[in-house]
């Protein structure tokens, strides 16, 4: 199997990652909450979510971490190693909406072969998530 993905030397600060649109279905919001072992009712029970002041169930923060992780490593390739994920949440991800992730390479650290990506995920209400992901990349085909 050939090592695929981005090489540290080929990444430049300012490079933009391809946009990724993720449809937010009710099933997906519940499935991701359960896969992250998060049984808070606001993530799966619409009636209780409304009672607690939300308009519907909404995505949990562990899933936002997971999707930001997926977005960065899908671009970087399987050899990349995730060193940091720092996120701040904004508008909730509700069922029926779509979140579009965009990212830009914001910094490079040559000594550690680390690349920082500024990530933003927006839905119809505004910014759901803003943050940065730091990944370590292989260089010269060696991990």
């Amino acid at each position: 199997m050939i090592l695929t993905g981005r090489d540290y030397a080929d990444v430049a600060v300012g490079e933009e990652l391809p946009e990724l649109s993720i449809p937010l279905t009710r099933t997906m919001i519940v499935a991701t909450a359960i896969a992250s072992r998060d049984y808070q009712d606001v993530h799966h029970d619409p009636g209780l979510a409304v009672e607690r002041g939300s308009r519907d169930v909404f995505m949990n923060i562990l899933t936002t971490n997971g999707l930001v992780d997926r977005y960065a490593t899908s671009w970087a390739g399987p050899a990349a190693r995730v060193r940091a994920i720092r996120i701040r949440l904004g508008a909730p991800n509700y069922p029926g909406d779509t979140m579009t992730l965009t990212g830009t390479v914001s910094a490079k650290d040559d000594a550690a072969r680390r690349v920082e990506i500024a990530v933003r995920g927006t839905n119809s209400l505004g910014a759901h998530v803003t943050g940065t992901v730091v990944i370590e990349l292989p260089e010269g085909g060696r991990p």
Partner: protein
Amino acid sequence: MNEYEERLRSWVGRELSVPKPGQDPVNVPMIRHWVEAMADPNPVYLDEEAARATGRDGIVAPASMMQAWTMRGYAATVNPRPGAGDGMAELIALLDEGGYTSVVATDSEFEFHRELVPGDHVSAGEVVEAISPEKNTALGAGRFITTVRTYRDQDGEVVAVQRWRTLRFRPKAPQERPEAPQERPEAPQERPEAPQEREKPRALRPRPAVNLDNAFWFEAAREHRLVVQRCAACKALRHPPGPCCPQCGSFDWDTVDSAGDGHVYSYVVNHHPPHPAFDMPYIVAVVELAEGTRLITNLTGVAPEEVEIGMPVVLEWLEADPELTLPVFRPAAPRKER
């Protein structure tokens, strides 16, 4: 500081939970559930051969799954049984006593020290880093609780550190709620893409003109640090930020953290023109910090007619929207009776 405030403050620095291993060690079935639900195509989580082709010894767990390994699970969520010495339960009870009965997560900052592999067994300990003063948010008045979670493997080695922030708040009555509650609810202006219709939450505050010379100041503000630029040559403090020392002309500089105490040097009350990001009227003040520099800011927690020149004020942070945190000031002590 009142007694309740004292009791809350006493939690800063304390351990909320004794580290105990997660329900299950890192395992392939839970990784599979995660990867399927996230629709993550990276093969290194399930395909041994693909993982080895990247220089790893075998499959690894997704980095972002770290917290999932330490979740308490279904039974403990629906039927929590706090044991003796369960600091988290005690702190939540204290917050409930203050009326802060609801919770939303707002920030997660993970640093990963190594990748987890099947068989690793993760524990997490949690220490309170900060408890904010009460803030008015779109969902209700609340306090931000910042903790640091340290994740360790079966040998006690740190595998990840997470700074974790939640808002504990008093839910507003339904008619007071914004049309759509937000998971970062203190930021009612966080809808840059939303059309500016009357019934929508307010517009964003005007963007500050951030450039290479002043970006450090806004970045520090996001971390809730009010910094003052200092000349590295003659040590003179200056604000607003600039590339060159007005005293000695040096281009070398560093910063000092302000303690956040000051007084009102001057102020105006803006009644006009209306701007959709602001409630009119609002107070624009020049605050002189104890460190000596002055900054232009807003005053909060005080009516325009009660502001006085020389009034002592203290720093508070305004989370204006997901991309903008600004220092504002409120009166330092209870105002005198007249």
